[in-house]
């Protein structure tokens, strides 16, 4: 699944800033290393009304001041501009044009068959929502990761439309100028269940990523547990040594009690009593530790695993109502001197909507199993190879 984030290069920064400021009514005079921006009255934006200088790139080490800002991917000014723009209109509407480029399916694209002509006939309008979700994944052993993903859902069928999400991302790059409006038809009530569907799909889509972070985190927790176990084992050994020392000391004293004079017997008895009580205490600690070890230090394990658990925060950031057309497409296929027309379900922005199978072996036509012959129905590569 495509990551929706855009690499922030200097040219992208400049393009976005120029468009954004102009859309607010600002005027910009550009020269090689700086821009002069005039912000008109009553414009609410990160820079105040009046004239400002934007220095391009990181060349100038001076700090920003009221009227001079730096413009580069990491500049404070640009970050502030992004925050402002992102909050300005998080919901809206776009239309995917019927006359947008025809999407040739991979199973034709990767074959020797050529498309001579393609004619799309739209039958009805459809509406989908596309939501940009930020997924933040946090755990103690890994750097925090943030993903941005686009999920498209048809409003009527609740069908997931991955191709439409891709088209949406393509048409909202910084280089493109897709027309959007804020005139959303759908209501909150319509949207809530769709949002739920989108969330479920999102989690499925990021599952692979989550799994790998999950495994890493579990490994980290596991090695911490193992480290703890080894430490405790070491402690057990130390205690056992002490235990056996005490035991031999007590035995020595017992001999003294049996053989010595009265004074030394009394002294030995006193000492033995002290040692015995120490021995018992030690014995108890040791037993308890061994017991915990034998059961695998469950509490400590729980504590460690809790600390390493993954905290996944999902936040919908933008919501776009997307109008697209559904209908049928006629592909006129040519293979040498043979011509053949196929009609398939199609949607603008989503491409061919039908699953197409080989007319001979019923295998699904895919990028890996493209079409091979068109003279007598559509035949796939696998079955023409088998012959």
């Amino acid at each position, binding site marked *: 699944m495509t990551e929706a*984030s855009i690499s922030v290069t200097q*040219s992208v920064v400049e393009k976005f800033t120029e468009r954004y400021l102009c*859309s607010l009514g600002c005027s910009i005079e550009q020269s090689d290393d700086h821009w002069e921006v005039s912000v008109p009255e009553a414009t609410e934006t990160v820079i105040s009304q009046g004239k400002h200088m934007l220095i391009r790139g990181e060349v100038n080490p001076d700090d920003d001041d009221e009227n001079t800002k730096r413009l580069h991917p990491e500049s404070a000014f640009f970050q502030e501009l992004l925050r402002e723009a992102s909050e300005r209109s998080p919901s*809206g509407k*776009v239309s995917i044009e019927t006359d947008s480029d025809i999407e040739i399916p991979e199973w034709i694209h990767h074959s020797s068959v050529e498309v001579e002509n393609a004619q799309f006939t739209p039958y009805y309008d459809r509406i989908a929502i596309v939501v940009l979700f930020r997924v933040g994944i946090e755990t103690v052993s890994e750097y925090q990761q943030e993903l941005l993903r686009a999920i498209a859902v048809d409003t009527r069928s609740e069908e997931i439309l991955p191709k439409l999400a891709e088209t949406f991302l393509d048409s909202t790059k910084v280089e493109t100028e897709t*027309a959007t409006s804020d005139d959303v038809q759908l209501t909150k009530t319509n949207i809530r269940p769709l949002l739920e569907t989108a969330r479920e799909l999102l989690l499925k889509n990021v599952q692979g990523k989550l799994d790998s972070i999950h495994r890493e985190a579990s490994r980290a927790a596991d090695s911490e547990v193992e480290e703890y176990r080894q430490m405790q084992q070491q402690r057990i050994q130390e205690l056992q040594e002490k235990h056996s020392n005490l035991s031999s000391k007590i035995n020595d004293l017992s001999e003294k009690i049996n053989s010595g004079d009265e004074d030394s017997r009394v002294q030995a008895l006193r000492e033995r009593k002290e040692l015995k009580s120490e021995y018992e205490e030690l014995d108890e600690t040791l037993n308890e530790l061994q017991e915990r070890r034998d059961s695998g230090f469950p509490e400590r394990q729980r504590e460690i695993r809790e600390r390493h658990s993954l905290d996944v925060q999902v936040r*919908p950031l933008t919501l776009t109502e997307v109008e697209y057309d559904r209908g049928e497409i006629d592909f006129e296929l040519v293979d040498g001197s043979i011509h053949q027309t196929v009609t398939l379900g199609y949607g603008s922005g989503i491409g061919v909507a039908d699953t197409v199978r080989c007319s001979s072996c019923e295998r699904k036509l895919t990028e890996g199993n493209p079409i091979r012959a068109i003279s007598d129905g559509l035949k796939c590569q696998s079955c023409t190879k088998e012959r």
Partner: protein
Amino acid sequence: MSGYDLVDIEVTHESADDLLDSLSEDGTDGSHLQSIQAVRLQAGQPDSELRSLKELDENAVKLLEHQVDAAYRALFEMDGKALLADEVGLGKTIEVGMILKEMHFRETDESVLILTPAQLAKQWQAELREKFGLDFVCNYDDEFEDFDAHDYIIASIDTAKSERHRQTVLDRDWDVLVLDEAHYVKNEETDRYDLIDRLSYNYAFFLTATPIQNELTDLYNVVSLLRPGLFGTRDVFHQYFVNNNQETLVNRDELQDRLNKVMIRNRREDTDIDFTDRTIDTRTFDPTPKERELYQAVSDYVKGAYSQDQGQKLVLMLLQKEVVSSPVALKQTIEKRLYDQSELTHADELESILDLIDEIDTVTKQERLLDIVEEARDNVEMGRVIVFTQFRATQQQILDRLASEGYTVHAFHGGHSSSEKEQIVEEFEEEGGILVSTDAMSEGRNLQFCNILVNLDLPWNPMRVEQRIGRVHRIGQKRDVFIFNMALKDTVEEYVLERLYHKIDLFQQSVGELSSILSRLEESGTSFEDEIFERLVAADSEVDLENDFDAMAVDLQEQRELADKLEEFNSGVFEGFDLGESDD
């Protein structure tokens, strides 16, 4: 490690209320797109880019993805010290051009030194100027003074290391060093290695298609010049990466990881370069008896004059070339010699040659050229054909002849200004017909819209031949290319063509392959043209001459085989730059 217990995952869905509330808010058209873009940018990472890309003239250079990628990686991921080791023909020069253009844009190139094998220096200069608008002085230019007098220099590595210049080169702190055919510095005991080792520079780009020439130590030496310490000491490198019994690689993964920090190697199969087919049609013709007589007279004269005075070599070589190009070209040169130089030996011989020229009424090659252009007029889009000749006099005569036959003709030679040249190429594209050009065309101009090329005469320098072909057979040519070579039987031209050029498959070499063969040849201290001439004048008989040319062909073939073997060996070692399974 297996059998670990998995930690918990807690997923929290933050409320969508704010987002849903925004549905009812009024905004302006277009602001939603900006919000989407802002969100996508907030999630993105700051990234470097090649900012000079958009400054390039798309008509002058069409960059391929792997080239842009290599330039990017060399600059930003390898901190400006990289070994560009693409397989031959993938455009390493273009990659360096892009890198230098970017550095120029970012003003980090106050002084740049490009060191190349001698015969590639001018080609580098032309490519950088025409494709990237970068002006370099070449050590062969008249204006070249010394290595401290210019900031952008292309020089032969041997000039730079020579007694005369060495200290000046070393005294300077260069911003950028480019070293072409970097495998020449594989041997740490040579003066070349020593020069590069002592040079002071901030950024360096080394180019070679074959980093390993003989043994793995070559790779160690080249890489260590760029990144001292990357492989540790020579002993450590050997112990760790080389299996001494079999001279094979061990610890490949580790080697690959380290090489990845400094070396970029693209393979042909990973790129989208796809050349169309090239058909070679070599036509040899029987000269008329008069032409034969003239050829013999000129050859005898050249031989005799050279045996007496070797200082005349250049002009004698010229006569020998002109006699197979056209009598008119020969005539001009002889007349100039006769009338400009008062004390000329052998004047009567030259006078009699002039008489022979005057007796010629049919010029065989020109007559036969009409067959080719007529065929083209009937079969090729707008009958476009490019005819190359080395001589202006021949060019003029052909132009007149073709025009008199009713063909649309265009002339292109070094005397035109660069805007005139552009105009001529444009007219040729629009009007079609026949463009008759001298080798002034060979530098930098692209004529992919034409796919038929005629070599009316043949340069004795194979690089020139390749440059001619390269004008039409290059990335962007969509049709198959047809090359016609014309030669008169039993002349030097036929020998050069049949015995040398065809032996090394010159006309089928992909761009760049030839330079690796010729660079090897140059390494052995041989100039191709001199070699041909020397053999020609030294031969006592026809049989001698044939044997001589055959011997030269064997040399060439050996160089070619060596170049092929090396390329193959390197492909094996660096297979996909994935060094494969470890031997250990």
